[in-house]
């Protein structure tokens, strides 16, 4: 009987108060590597411009898992993917680029809710907005929002859902750029 009380109580306490810092890029390493390897080099010379907001800590909404910190490194992820997509395998920020990607703002949030004393669900959301500019100077804005959810016992679902959402958001942006091919 004692163990029946202690275990859920410990989990509840851990769910609410446990504190750790996570690097989402590191969490997502395997999935990112697979996605990057799956990209075939295009005929495009790509230039990439990113802002600091892409590498901000994700905001943890709600109280559950609020002590956890999630460091985003979307600019590095974008760099890797577009390098793989680039014709020459290296990005250049010159006017000679066939397409310039300007990822100017980003917001990442995660929220976890308790479903029972021993389980919950987390939802990560990543927004990236900016514009793509063609060689002829035509700018097209983009605003990508991706959500992903993952079940959780002790906040592990938070980093999982954030990692998946960031992976999906970047994949969408890669598709947008591939359309210039």
């Amino acid at each position, binding site marked *: 009987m*004692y163990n029946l*009380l*202690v275990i*859920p*109580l410990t989990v*509840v*306490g851990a769910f*609410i*108060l446990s504190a750790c810092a996570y690097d989402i890029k590191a969490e997502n390493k395997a999935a990112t590597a697979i996605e990057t390897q799956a990209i075939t080099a295009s005929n495009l010379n790509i230039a990439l411009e990113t802002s600091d907001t892409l590498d901000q800590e994700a*905001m*943890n*909404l*709600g*109280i559950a898992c*609020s002590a956890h910190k999630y460091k985003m490194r979307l600019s590095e992820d974008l760099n890797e993917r577009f390098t793989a997509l680039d014709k020459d395998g290296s990005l250049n920020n010159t006017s000679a680029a066939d397409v310039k990607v300007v990822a100017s703002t980003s*917001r990442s*949030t995660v*929220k976890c*809710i*308790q*479903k029972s*004393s021993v389980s919950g*669900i987390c*939802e990560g959301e990543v927004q990236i907005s900016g514009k793509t500019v063609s060689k002829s100077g035509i700018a097209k804005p983009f605003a990508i929002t991706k959500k992903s*959810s993952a079940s959780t016992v002790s906040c592990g679902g938070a980093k999982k859902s954030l990692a998946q959402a960031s992976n999906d958001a970047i994949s969408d942006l890669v598709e947008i750029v591939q359309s210039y091919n």
Partner: protein
Amino acid sequence: MRLFLLLFSALTISGCVQHTKMLKPLAEKQQGTLNIQSVTVSYSDLSAETIMAIDEKIKTEAEKKGNSDSIASQPLKSSMAKVTKEVLEARDSDTNDFANIYIEVDNLKFVDPMAAILISDTDQLSGSVKVVDPKTKELLSEFYVDVLKGTGGLLGLAVRGGGVREKLSAQFAEYIGDNLGFEKIENTATYNSASKE
């Protein structure tokens, strides 16, 4: 041992929790000036199935008791919208600076009586709030609200009483009012659904 567990759960559940996370603060010049025109409540994908099941259960129980017209028997999206509008109307301004409130509920959780008696448990209502200019559709403010109310022991359960959904909604509305810079009015959070029937 029981005392340790009670203390642990009290520390776990209460303490320095942030009930609001701000995503987009309201412009300073608009703080305290908005006139709330409407409140709309919806359920997010995280919780829709659970909350609709609770709504159905509440409706069935109300029909058995013959008080299906009361606010306590309405679905959460109706009762919460009504309670929120009432709480905010008591605090907002009478200016022409109108705003609409959109709430998307992520979680409605009630205390498990067994857990509450043995240790403690919490009622919870959480969701995102968007404040929109009805004319321009501009997003004026966006934030997340999480209301957590702990209950422990038989006494705690007795004190908790009824109308829990409405009390949580009223507290949720108070946090909205705080974020919009409305002046505090005493006792608006002690919403009693019985008095509204």
